[in-house]
């Protein structure tokens, strides 16, 4: 899924902390992805346009497909996309998917996605949480940053560790809940 694409918006919004949460709710049959940042936020006017593929804030070309794609992939599984935003406070994007819907795109390699995001924005803090079947795993770069003591997340050896760390911890949870 296009977590990478959408989280990049948070990076561009000057966020210093981005929370990415993936939660499976068997009872309601929903898989919910939340990307919450403390970036510059959007005005109600901008917010009204963000899911329009022909709206983008960048100047290089006239299409912006990140959020429209996410909306489409959520809605075709009977889910929804909700965006809350306030100027100066940040933005919360919530996409819910039909957990067992035939059209739900596979999760893909979430560990690589999140680790790649952190590696490429080494100065931003991320909190990545996976919650499913009563289990929870949380990776918080603020904790890791303390351990790293100045060594960057962009260092390949660190990035490699991060990918394995997230993968080994999330894989079993997702597997036990039959999400991947």
């Amino acid at each position, binding site marked *: 899924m296009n977590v990478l694409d959408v989280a990049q918006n948070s990076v561009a919004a000057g966020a210093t902390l981005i929370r990415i949460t993936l939660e499976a709710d068997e009872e309601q049959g929903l898989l919910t992805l939340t990307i919450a940042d403390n970036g510059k936020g959007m005005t109600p006017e901008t917010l009204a346009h963000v899911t329009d593929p022909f709206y983008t804030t960048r100047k290089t070309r006239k299409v912006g497909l990140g959020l429209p794609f996410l909306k489409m992939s959520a809605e075709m599984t009977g889910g929804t996309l909700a965006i809350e935003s306030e100027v100066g406070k940040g933005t919360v994007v919530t996409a819910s998917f039909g957990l067992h819907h035939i059209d739900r795109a596979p999760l893909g*390699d979430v560990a690589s996605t999140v680790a790649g995001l952190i590696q490429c924005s080494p100065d931003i803090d991320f909190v990545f949480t996976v919650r499913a079947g009563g289990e929870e795993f949380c990776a918080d770069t603020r904790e*890791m940053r303390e351990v790293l003591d100045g060594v960057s997340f962009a260092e*390949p050896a660190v990035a490699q560790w991060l990918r394995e760390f997230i993968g080994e911890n999330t894989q079993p949870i997702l597997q036990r809940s039959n999400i991947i």
Partner: protein
Amino acid sequence: MKSLQELAAIRDRMKQTVNTREAAHDTTRIVVGMATCGIAAGARPVLNAFTEEIARRELSGVLVTQTGCIGLCQYEPIVEVTMPGQDKVTYVKMTPDKVARVVSEHIIGGKPVAEYTIGAR
């Protein structure tokens, strides 16, 4: 299972190598195009392969990072390599199995792999 203790060990190893080199100007940068076009073309496995190869060979002073759309979507995945004192080299249509050669011949050997570059197209 990977743990934070392991991370501390990586930190200590990194600190030793970081001290022996100077900052920014002698860093090699491997920049992978990761906009919608790049991701769709398979940029993420390429980024992972570079990260893995650099970590495996324990190279220091090499950063793997990303950029947005470079504007040549038909050539994605695109990777730009900037080495100190050399012109930028642009690799196109990259795949994970081309990575090892780029690392050994270009990043380590200093000689770009001409057949993978945009000039060869």
